């Protein structure tokens, strides 16, 4: 037994004892809730300042604010809504009642009921004070990790410390899954009360799950801070199946017409993500859900064209030519067809497609470029 080990052993009990005393004497910070409020207010100011935020009187913001009140009349007066133009499929709520909704999510919610599910889910997090719980958990976990580190330091077993940390981190996320389930339950209740079909939640999640699976870098399940989507889909499907028939379903036509007006812009944002597999999965799903093929297919073709691979170019040409045959080809489709044909070495077809493009769009800003391409 060497001297260093001995001195560690002698120092360990008082040092650990001291640490336990310190940790017992300090309150967990969530209880002094001012800190969490300060952080939330800072983040809300960032939302307010965001260049991506849609103005208060924007038709989408106005409609979504109404939707929040339909879902939770009691709380809607105290909630502040921020709609951000961003291709992310995201929504979140700060513990002070500020809610952020991203247009990337709205692109994916074809029916108002799907969007209502997400909003109700977020109100659920707020109503159940989940942020406060997470805040407490975060501090408790930090303190626990210190104990582990000290214990590991005392025995010289640093590796043991690292392994224990892993276990605690996993436990933190498992806790969070319970919160997601709670928020889902809240959403189901509010949806039913408002007259929205429950299968909407399951359908949205099934769609998101398909996108997630297509993504090249999937996040391992262990680190997901929300329940595995497959499990959520199943739970929601079960709930929907056992739910009573809705007497007067809510009319979602206003959402459909609003969404149709912004669809092309949101799709272009999605293309701006420069992602391939998951974007293709999304566009195919939207077409199955009834979004117009003449809007979706040129964008699918554009994603395929980017790779430049012969098989992708062939598929892009097939999509675009189908539109031409159906008489649905837009100026954008013709332009793209020209580019695809050129990339495939078919000069005659490219020239013809470009000619049709300029015919439909005589004032095209890229006219000079296209004319040069035609030579």
């Amino acid at each position, binding site marked *: 037994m060497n001297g260093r080990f001995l001195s*560690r052993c002698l*120092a*360990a009990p*008082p*040092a650990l004892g*001291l*640490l336990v005393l*310190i*940790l017992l*004497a*300090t309150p*967990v*910070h969530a209880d002094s809730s*001012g*800190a969490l409020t*300060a*952080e*939330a207010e*800072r*983040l809300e100011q960032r939302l*307010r*300042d965001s260049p991506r935020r849609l103005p208060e009187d924007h038709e989408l913001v106005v409609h979504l604010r109404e939707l929040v009140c339909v879902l939770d009349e009691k709380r809607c007066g105290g909630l502040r809504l921020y709609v951000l133009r961003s291709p992310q*499929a*995201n*929504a*979140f*709520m*700060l*513990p002070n009642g500020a809610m952020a909704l991203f247009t990337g*999510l709205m692109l994916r919610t074809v029916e108002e009921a799907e969007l209502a599910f*997400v909003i109700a*889910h*977020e109100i659920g*997090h707020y109503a159940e004070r*989940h*942020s406060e719980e*997470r805040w407490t958990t*975060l*501090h*408790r*976990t*930090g*303190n626990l*990790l*210190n104990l582990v*580190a*000290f214990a590991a*330091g*005392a025995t010289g077993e640093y590796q043991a410390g690292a392994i224990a940390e892993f276990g605690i981190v996993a436990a933190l996320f498992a806790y*969070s899954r319970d919160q*997601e389930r709670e928020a889902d339950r809240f959403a189901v209740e509010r949806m039913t009360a408002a007259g929205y079909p429950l299968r909407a939640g399951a359908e949205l999640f099934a769609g*998101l799950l398909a996108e*997630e699976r297509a993504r090249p870098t999937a*996040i391992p399940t262990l680190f*997901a*801070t*929300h329940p595995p*989507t497959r499990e959520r889909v199943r739970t929601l499907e079960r709930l929907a199946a056992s739910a009573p028939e809705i007497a007067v379903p809510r009319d979602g036509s206003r959402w459909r017409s609003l969404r149709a007006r912004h669809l092309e812009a949101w799709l272009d944002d999605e293309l701006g993500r420069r992602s391939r597999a998951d974007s293709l999965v999304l566009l195919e799903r939207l077409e199955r859900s009834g979004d117009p093929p003449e809007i979706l297919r040129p964008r699918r073709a554009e994603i395929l064209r980017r790779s430049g691979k012969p098989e992708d170019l062939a598929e892009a040409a097939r999509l675009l030519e189908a539109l031409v045959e159906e008489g649905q080809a837009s100026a954008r489709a013709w332009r793209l067809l020209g580019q695809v044909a050129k990339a495939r070495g078919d000069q005659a077809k490219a020239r013809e497609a470009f000619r049709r493009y300029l015919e439909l769009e005589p004032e095209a800003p890229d006219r000079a470029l296209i004319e040069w391409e035609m030579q």
Partner: protein
Amino acid sequence: MPWRGEWFGPLAAVLAFGLVAGCATTAPRVAEDAKGAKLGANAEIVLLAPDVLVYELPTSGVPVLRRDWTEQALRNIERALGAELKRRGARFRVALRPPEDDQDRARQYWLLNRRLAETLVDPNLRLPHKRGKLDWTVGPGVRILDPDARYALFMLVRDSYSSDARKAMMIAGLFLGVNVPLGQQFVYVHLIDLEDGSVVWTNRLLSMGGDLRSPGPADEVVRKVLNKAPL
């Protein structure tokens, strides 16, 4: 993936700042004007509201934003900036409050200054094609911040101080060879030429000391970070 309370990210960023080890280091970068002239001599400066956040580091190590400490630090920094410029004999004007109205163009330029600062301090956002050269501009519209001054000075401060319990824990840790990191201070400053919006000088200071909550040390921190400023 979808919706969850996304307010842990910024906390993680503050933690990441804390990982950058070391005592006080400054890293000034200067750009010359088109004729290679010495900048700033005798020019009037407008002081923009600094963006300051001061956190408490409790035993858990999760930073907690302290509004009271932030207010104290902000007051001390504003005062120290004025004192330092006066000491150098520089002419300056104070525009220390960011305008509230978010449609206000002056506020938009304040936000743009902050975004620029955040971009310049984040190593992940370093643009390779700049090749380390200080070659940034917010555009000539920045003139709106002041009709007469030549330069605008902007400061970004992220600071954290350990709670007493954490300090005690650090001492306990010494006996066991366990390292308990304490608070860290990060101060960044840049000068914008209001003629064309270009960034003419930046500096940053990473340290463990200089308590900004009290006036004396705050003066010292401000003097240190402005030490080589071309004013």
